[in-house]
C-alpha cells in the first residue's frame, strides 16, 4: 500500500521485482485516476510519503511441472515475479501476455527471460497474435499438458480465463484486485466471496482459485466509487491546467 502525500489515499500496487543488494523494489502502475496520475508526475529523487509492505499471502512457488501464466495489461507486472519464481523452482513456464495494443505490452523482455515459451496477443493485432488471451490459452492447452496456471489482469479477463481453464479442468489461480483501504485486514473493504464464504483479499489473498470466486459480485463491487473517482480526476486535471497557465 502506498500514500503519496498527506491528502492522499492509500492504494495497493504489486511488487513486480526486488533487488536485495540495493534494497530497491519495483512497482509498475497504469495511470487510470488521480492518484496514479499524480504518481506519474513524480521524478527521480522525489519521495512517496508512506509505503507499507510486503502484504498479502505469497504465491505457492514449487515445482508443478509445466505451468501456464497469463498476464493482461498492467497485470503483466504482477505475473512477472510469479513467472520468475516458478522458473527458478524448475517449472516449464509458458507465458501469455495480452494487451489492447502493442505499446501496452510491458515487461516483455523480462518475462521472456524466465519463460520457456512466450505468446503475445493484442486486441488490435498490432503485436503478436490478434485476439484475446483466452484464444492463446486454448491453443496452449491443445498442445501441452499443463499442471497449474495463473491469470492476472482486468477482472473480466480473469473471469474468462477461469471459464476457459475450467472447461479443461485445469486449476487456475487469479489475483484479485478489489478496493483496499488499510491492506492489513482491519476493515473488510476488500472482502470477496470465495466458495461461499467471506474472505479479505488483503490478508487471505490476493490469490484465490478462479472457480471459487463470485465474479459478478466482485465486478460489481469494483464500481462502487466510479462517480467519486471521476470527480477526483477531473478536479485534479483542472488544477493541472491552471498550473500550466
Amino acid at each position: 500500500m502506498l500514500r503519496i502525500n498527506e491528502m492522499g489515499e492509500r492504494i495497493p500496487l504489486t511488487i513486480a521485482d526486488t533487488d536485495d543488494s540495493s534494497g530497491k523494489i519495483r512497482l509498475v502502475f497504469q495511470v487510470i485516476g488521480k492518484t496514479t496520475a499524480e504518481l506519474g508526475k513524480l521524478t527521480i529523487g522525489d519521495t512517496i510519503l508512506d509505503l507499507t509492505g510486503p502484504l498479502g499471502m505469497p504465491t505457492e512457488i514449487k515445482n508443478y511441472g509445466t505451468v501456464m501464466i497469463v498476464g493482461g495489461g498492467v497485470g503483466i507486472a504482477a505475473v512477472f515475479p510469479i513467472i520468475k519464481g516458478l522458473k527458478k523452482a524448475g517449472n516449464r513456464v509458458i507465458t501469455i501476455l495480452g494487451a489492447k495494443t502493442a505499446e501496452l505490452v510491458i515487461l516483455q523482455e523480462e518475462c521472456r527471460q524466465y519463460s520457456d515459451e512466450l505468446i503475445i496477443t493484442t486486441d488490435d493485432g498490432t503485436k503478436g497474435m490478434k485476439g484475446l488471451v483466452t484464444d492463446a490459452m486454448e491453443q496452449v492447452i491443445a498442445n501441452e499438458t499443463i499442471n497449474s496456471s495463473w491469470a492476472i489482469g482486468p477482472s473480466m479477463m480473469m473471469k474468462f480465463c477461469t471459464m476457459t481453464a475450467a472447461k479443461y479442468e485445469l486449476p487456475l489461480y487469479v489475483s484479485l484486485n478489489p478496493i483496499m483501504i488499510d491492506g492489513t485486514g482491519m476493515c473488510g473493504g476488500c472482502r470477496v466471496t470465495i466458495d461461499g464464504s467471506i474472505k479479505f483479499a488483503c490478508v487471505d489473498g490476493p490469490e484465490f482459485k478462479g472457480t471459487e470466486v463470485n465474479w459478478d459480485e466482485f465486478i460489481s463491487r469494483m464500481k462502487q466509487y466510479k462517480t467519486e473517482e471521476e470527480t477526483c480526476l477531473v478536479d485534479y486535471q483542472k488544477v493541472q491546467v491552471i498550473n500550466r497557465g
Partner: protein
Amino acid sequence: MVRRSRTKTPIAEQDPAIRKSNFDEVCLGYTLEEGAAEAVRCLQCKEAPCIASCPVMIDIPGFILAIKKGNMQEAADILGKYTNLPAICGRVCPQEKQCEQVCKLGLAKNFEPVAIGKLERLVADWALENQDFSKCIQNNEAKIGRIAVIGSGPSGLTVAGDLAKMNYEVIIYEALHDSGGVLTYGIPEFRLPKRIVKKEIESIEALGVTIETNVVVGKTITMDEVMNEFDACYISVGAGAPNFMGIPGTALNGVYSSSEYLTRINLMHSYEFPKFDTPIKRSKNVVVIGGGNVAMDAARSAKRLGADHVSIVYRRSLEELPARIEEYHHSVEEDIDYHWLSNPVEYMNNGVGDLNGVKCVKMELGEPDESGRRRPVPIKNSEFIIEADTVIEAIGQGSNKVLLSTFPELKLTKWGYIEADPKTGTTSIPGVFAGGDIVTGAATVILAMGAGKIAAVEIDNYVREKNKTPVTTKV
C-alpha cells in the same frame, strides 16, 4: 459549611442543530472558573472509592483539590503520575460505569456525582496548552534495555511511556501511517479531536519513545527479528478485524463494516473529499446495526456527512445498550432514530448490486445469557423493511491474525485472543508480554491503558532479572 450544588456544573456544548453538520467537538469543556466550581463539589473522601474504580487508580481527590486551590500545574503533575493519556481518557472513558458510579456525593439522594471525567479533561487540556514538551529532560544514563511495542493504540502508548520514564529505549511499531490506533482511525473528531490525540502522542515521544509507522510486524519485520533485537516485547495490536453477520446481501454496494466507514472518515478524512483523495458514499438513508459506542460513532458520522435519515437497529432495548449514555443522548439530540428489539435478516438488492433496503425481524427478550443480559429471540412473521442506501455493521471486532499467524508458538485462547495473565501481561513465551484488546477482546481505552501500566512494571522486573543472570562464558 460549603453548600454543594446537587447537580454537576453545566458544561458548554455545540448546539445540536449546528453540530450535526460538522465534525467539530461536541463538548466544549469547562473553563477554569467552571472547573473550580465543580472541584468544590468533591467531598475529599479519606478512602475515596473513585480511586479504586479507576483502572489506573488516579489520585482523584488529590488532583481535584489542586484544581480547587487553583494550582493547575500541580493537578497536571498528579495526573501524570498515573496516566499518560489524560486528555483522551477524560473524553472517552465510561466514567458513569467507573469512577463516577461510586462517587459518594453521587450516592447521596438527589445528588449527581462529581464530574471527574470533565475535570480530568480540563487539567489535561490545560497541560497540553501550557506545558512545553520539548523541554522534557531525558537523562543520559545508560539505558536499562530495549523494548519493542507492537501497535500504537492506547495500551502500547501507555506501556511505552511508562518504560521510557523508567529509562528504557522503546520503539513502537505501527502498521498504519498514523499512530494512535482506535484513537486515530476509530473514534471520530467530534468526540476526540485528532489534534488532542496528536499532542498527547507527542508528549509520549518527548519521553524518548520512537514510533515507526508503516511497519506490519509479521510482514515488514518478523517476530524472530523482534525477539532477537529486543530484551522484551509488548504485543498490543488490538481487536481490529471486523465481524460481519454474514446475512444475504453482505457484498452489496453500500454495505460497510463500521471499521471501514470510520477508517475512511477519521484516518483518511473522506468527509473532506475531494480535498482529500479517499471517497465515501454520500447517502440519503443510513441504517447502522449494533448498540455499542462504535454504532453511535458511525451513525453520528453518517448524519454529519449529510444523510437525511439515520437509524440504529439494535436487537435488545435501551436498558441493555452498551454505548455510553452521554453518546446515546447526543445521538438522539442529533435526530438519530432507533429501532429497538430488531435485527437485520437480509440486505435488499436494487437489481444492479446496490443496497436499497434492510429487511429486519422484531425480537423479544428471553432468558438471561452468560453475559447476564436477556437473550433476544426473533418473533415469527414480524419482518419489516427499512429503506436504506447505506448500511453499516457495528457488531464488534475480532483478533487480527496477520501477526499471530506468523507466530504459532504463542498460545491463544479459544476465541483467538492472546492468552496472557491479566495481573502481569505475561504470555506463554518468556519476554513476550501482551495487553489491551488483543487479550480481552474489544473493551475500553482505559482498560487497555491499565493493562499497559501493569505490563510496564512486569517488563521492568523481567529485564532486570534477566540482566542479573550471569552471562555464560566459554570455558
